[in-house]
């Protein structure tokens, strides 16, 4: 049956007819027939303390990502959010990615610049674990992006050519457990800071409605400053398409916030937007790859 014929026929019976034509077989993995690379820049290991996860083990995480066509996953650890033994958390992250990541999980260690001797955590991430980047949680670690400590950390990471991912929020602040609250990180200070640190490579994760869908002048300022984004919390119909229209030149990457979110929510966003081949490839992998190479 031709596609148009099928659609017309299906539509004519949808409301009032019998069973729908969903195939009886289990749904295939979404990305199995997608060609080319897919880099997920927003993946985490370990459990977020108030949620059950679809990936109780690194192996389970990798299996699902692979099944959906992910070729590389930039992976942090939720241990880095609340643990104070940061070097231990980073070592476990690196080991898990090495042991179970089958070349897909790329570890992104965490550094808290309010901790004593945080500089050595940066060194270990880079020199000991061979990490390509860091993942920061300023709102849980007690600093803002206009604090001098953050500027020092960004400069230290930049000297080592590390990508710095800043997770603006982990969960909706309207529904956090009252014993575990953190307001979203304010990204505005990056507009002035980035030009002062030549070569800084910054990616904002979970920008969502506050950055990607919020004040357009802030968004454009961040874009002009060279900040990269991910789509995990990008909302609104045809969200990627609209983002590219609102902020021409925006560099956004595919991020799923897995396994806190359902992975499939991010993947379907690629289908919801009408993107040129070039834009699609940039979101799927090109922008992430370029950030590592820059």
């Amino acid at each position, binding site marked *: 049956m031709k596609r148009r014929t099928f659609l017309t026929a299906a*539509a004519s019976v949808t409301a009032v007819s019998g069973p729908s034509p*969903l195939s009886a077989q289990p*749904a295939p993995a979404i990305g199995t027939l997608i060609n080319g690379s897919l880099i997920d820049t927003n993946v985490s290991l370990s459990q977020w303390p108030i949620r059950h996860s679809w990936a109780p083990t690194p192996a389970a995480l990798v299996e699902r990502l692979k099944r959906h066509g992910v070729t590389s996953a930039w992976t942090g650890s939720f241990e880095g959010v609340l643990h104070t033994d940061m070097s231990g958390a980073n070592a476990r992250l690196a080991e898990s990615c090495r042991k179970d990541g089958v070349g897909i999980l790329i570890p992104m260690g965490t550094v808290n610049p309010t901790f004593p001797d945080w500089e050595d955590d940066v060194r270990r991430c880079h020199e000991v674990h061979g990490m390509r980047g860091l993942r920061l949680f300023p709102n849980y670690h007690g600093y803002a992006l206009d604090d001098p400590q953050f500027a020092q950390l960004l400069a230290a990471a930049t000297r080592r050519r590390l990508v710095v991912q800043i997770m603006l929020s982990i969960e909706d602040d*309207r529904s956090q457990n009252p014993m575990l609250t953190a307001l979203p990180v304010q990204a505005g200070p990056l507009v002035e800071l980035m030009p002062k640190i030549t070569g800084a490579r910054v990616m904002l994760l979970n920008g969502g409605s506050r950055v990607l869908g919020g004040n357009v002048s802030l968004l454009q300022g961040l874009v002009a400053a060279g900040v990269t984004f991910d789509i995990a919390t990008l909302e609104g*119909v045809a969200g990627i398409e609209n983002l590219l229209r609102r902020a021409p030149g925006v560099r956004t990457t595919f991020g799923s916030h897995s396994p806190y979110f359902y992975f499939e929510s991010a993947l379907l966003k690629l289908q919801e937007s009408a993107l040129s081949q070039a834009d699609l490839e940039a979101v799927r992998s090109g922008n992430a790859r370029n950030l590592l190479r820059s």
Partner: protein
Amino acid sequence: MNRRTFLTSSTLAAVTAPVRSHAASPLSLVNPPTDPAASAWPSSDLRKLGAWDIHSHVGTPGPNPAKRMEALVKIADRVGVERLCICMSPPWQHEPTPEQFRQSNDDVLAILKEWSSRAFGFVYLNPTHTRESLDELERCVADGPMIGIKLWVGTRANAPVLDPIVKRAAELKALILQHTWIKQRGKGNLPHESTPMELAELSGRHPGVPIVCGHTGGGDWALGIRAIRTRPDLYADLGGGDPVYGEVEMAVRELGAHRVLYGSDVSGRSFASQLGRVVGADISEADKRLILRDNLRGLLLPALRRKGITAE
């Protein structure tokens, strides 16, 4: 043809007529076959299924309501959403006056004239204005093409002023969609914003009347599901929150899949993020089919039949 006849017949046409080709075809235009994203569903299961969306708003841009709906339908087609329950129209008004909710409903009526093959209308009411709300229910549902009621944040769901509206809805077989959210454990809610707990109170006063718990409490869905668990006439709308893993699984486990509905809360939310939570849930394929389509279809059938539409 008088007005009632016209409205009823147009609704009948809406449900029996084929989808207009221009409404269903943009997929092939915007996602050419060479586009990898177009093959993200290699067996097209979602499109074949044709999801029914309990919770959508036509907030897409356009010069008039019908054009805004056209823009929304184009996007819905890309991800396999076939039918949308639409309600309210921008500007969003928390506590609308009767004039304001009538105007909002006029926009939905205008959309239904053009897009009744894809949309079901839910009349927006503010029960604080009880008499006017009942009159509007008559205009848009009893005498018009709409088949449901949308209640937002004008009145708490447990307020007695809702009782006559629920009773009339039951007579008309109109499905009620009541917004709920739990912000900061209820302390952050808007002054008249309902919680699932309050909706459970309302349901207790109206046994046998199906009501959809909009958002099921939002981000604090685990509390929302608990709150409606013992009320068999309450249905969980999954839409409108972040796609946090676990909600669908818990809803199916605690309520049964037959009480769970896919909803998106577009256009503020994404079809994709909300579909993804069902598609990706660790539940059976049969349950996904119920959630994405069959449950809502079953809930709407009484209203459709009331308007003379043969369901099978």
